[in-house]
């Protein structure tokens, strides 16, 4: 019995040491898979908004992701009128109106193509569609394009920084 209790103690002692070691190494392993600080730091892009032309869809790049920038013409704005969901997504810089969004389908992340004639986006992967204001108009995408964090600075727009306009959109559930 005496031997047994000694073995029992040794077993428990080893178990405790091994348990601490296992948890500690899992923590280290998890942290080693995290995005590197350099990856996280390279997360800001500044756009000069005076460069865009009406109804021409331009793709910018932010954190390796495509950012759709569409300066809306009066015609597009007229179409959006009376649609509160579309109006809530509108980004106004100076006197111009823009659709600015992460250009990835909210289904599984393919890049939808802009169709100039129809004035909407079609995703080739699973057939999802978005209108010119970025709202999903055909499933499977569960919601409109996500809007990247932005801050309006005069005629410039900084992607990656949270400005009051973006915060308001987030608070109102316009974007995730």
């Amino acid at each position, binding site marked *: 019995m005496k031997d047994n209790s000694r073995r029992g103690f040794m077993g428990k002692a080893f178990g405790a040491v091994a348990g601490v070691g296992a948890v500690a190494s899992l923590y280290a392993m998890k942290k080693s*898979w*995290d*995005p*590197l600080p350099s*990856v996280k730091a390279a*997360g800001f892009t500044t756009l000069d908004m005076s460069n865009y032309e009406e109804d021409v869809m331009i*793709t910018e*790049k932010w*954190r*390796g*992701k*495509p950012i759709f920038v569409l300066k809306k013409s009066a015609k597009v704005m007229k179409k959006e009128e009376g649609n509160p969901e579309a109006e809530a997504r509108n980004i106004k810089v100076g006197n111009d109106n823009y659709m600015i969004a992460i250009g990835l389908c909210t*289904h*599984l*992340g*393919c*890049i*939808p*193509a802009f169709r100039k004639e129809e004035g909407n986006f079609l*995703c*080739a*992967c*699973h*057939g999802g569609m978005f209108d010119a204001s970025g709202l999903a108009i055909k*499933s*499977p*995408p*569960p919601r409109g394009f996500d809007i990247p964090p932005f801050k309006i600075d005069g005629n410039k727009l900084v992607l990656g920084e949270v400005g009051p306009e973006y915060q308001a959109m987030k608070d109102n559930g316009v974007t*995730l």
Partner: protein
Amino acid sequence: MANFTKATGIKDWLDQRLAIDKVEKVMMSEYWIPKNINFLWAMGMVLVITFALLVVSGIFLLMYYVPTVDEAFNSVNYTIMREVDFGWLWRHVHGVAASVVFLIIYIHMFTGIYYGSYKKGREMIWISGMLLFVAFSAEAFSGYMLPWGQMSYWAGMVITNLFAGGSLHADGLVEWIRGDYVPAQAFLGRFFMLHVLLIPLAIMGLIGLHFGALRIPHVNNQEGEEIDFDKEAKKYLDGDKAGSKVMRFANDFMSKDMMVVGVYLVFFFYLVFYNYGFAMDPVNFDPADGLKTPAHIYPEWYFLWSYEILRPFGIDLGLILFAFAQVIFVLLPFLDRSPNAVPANRRGLFAIWFWVMLVNMIVLTAMGKLPPEDPFSTIGFVSAVLFVAQWLALPIITSYEKKV
């Protein structure tokens, strides 16, 4: 201390130290295989040989492949294909074997389902086999990333996005898996590691478990007959080879096994030399571009059936059904409530279940390849619903099955 004597030869010297006689008996000459089997019982050996081809060709590819986003594409498409002597051979063997191995796995699986080889003590063979299927799927996916072409990049984007869990929006988890906001260097580096080290290790371990799981219940036979292996082995060893229901694994069974392997290898190398195109997607010969999605994204043929179960539904239901399709085969031994471990053709309704399942998975595969337009998306939708319905019906139809 064991008693060592002066050896009479190399064989005896080794036998005293490693018991090679005993090992040979246990693994080969006295490992008993039923006689009442057919060529479908050779698929296990065909898979072993295909895996060996993958390892050997992989070793040669590994010597020249560079796992960086700037050089990966060229190291495959220029260095290996144009500069390395016979580099094309290793690449085509590796690509063709990666595709064909799934064809053989599916044949092996459906053979097991047809003959009831997952029942009556053979459950662990089935479960370890399905774990191997998962490991091979992960190996195929991680390998597909490495040439860093357009299909590599976009398949990586789409598949890692699955981990966001639809409406759960676990974007942090997706970024953690990738090590970046999008597939980039960190992503390529870790999938390279998984492909050449961690997953192959897991596969080798699982193959050991799969073989080990066979030892006690032994291999099934064409009639699902319960054989007393000890009795039949004794009969064989006592000289009644014709009357015994079993034969030696080596050389008796192996010689027939290798005959099938020979036929298979002729077919395999015909593909490698003359028809490798099916394993090399043309879109993947464009370098990865994070700002341009290819017009059509579809997985390799062996993932199409489960992809088609994901596709027709909204994101959350699609993901749930996709996950269902991924795990449900593992549970087969427990969902099949019938005590009969006999071929499907003698099991009434189960025979219909089996053939409908087989044909439906081929239909799902075909629809997964076609663009998501009518009538294909409707057929795919009906097939996906049928797939789920069949699995839900399985416990019911098998519990009403009569004992044969």
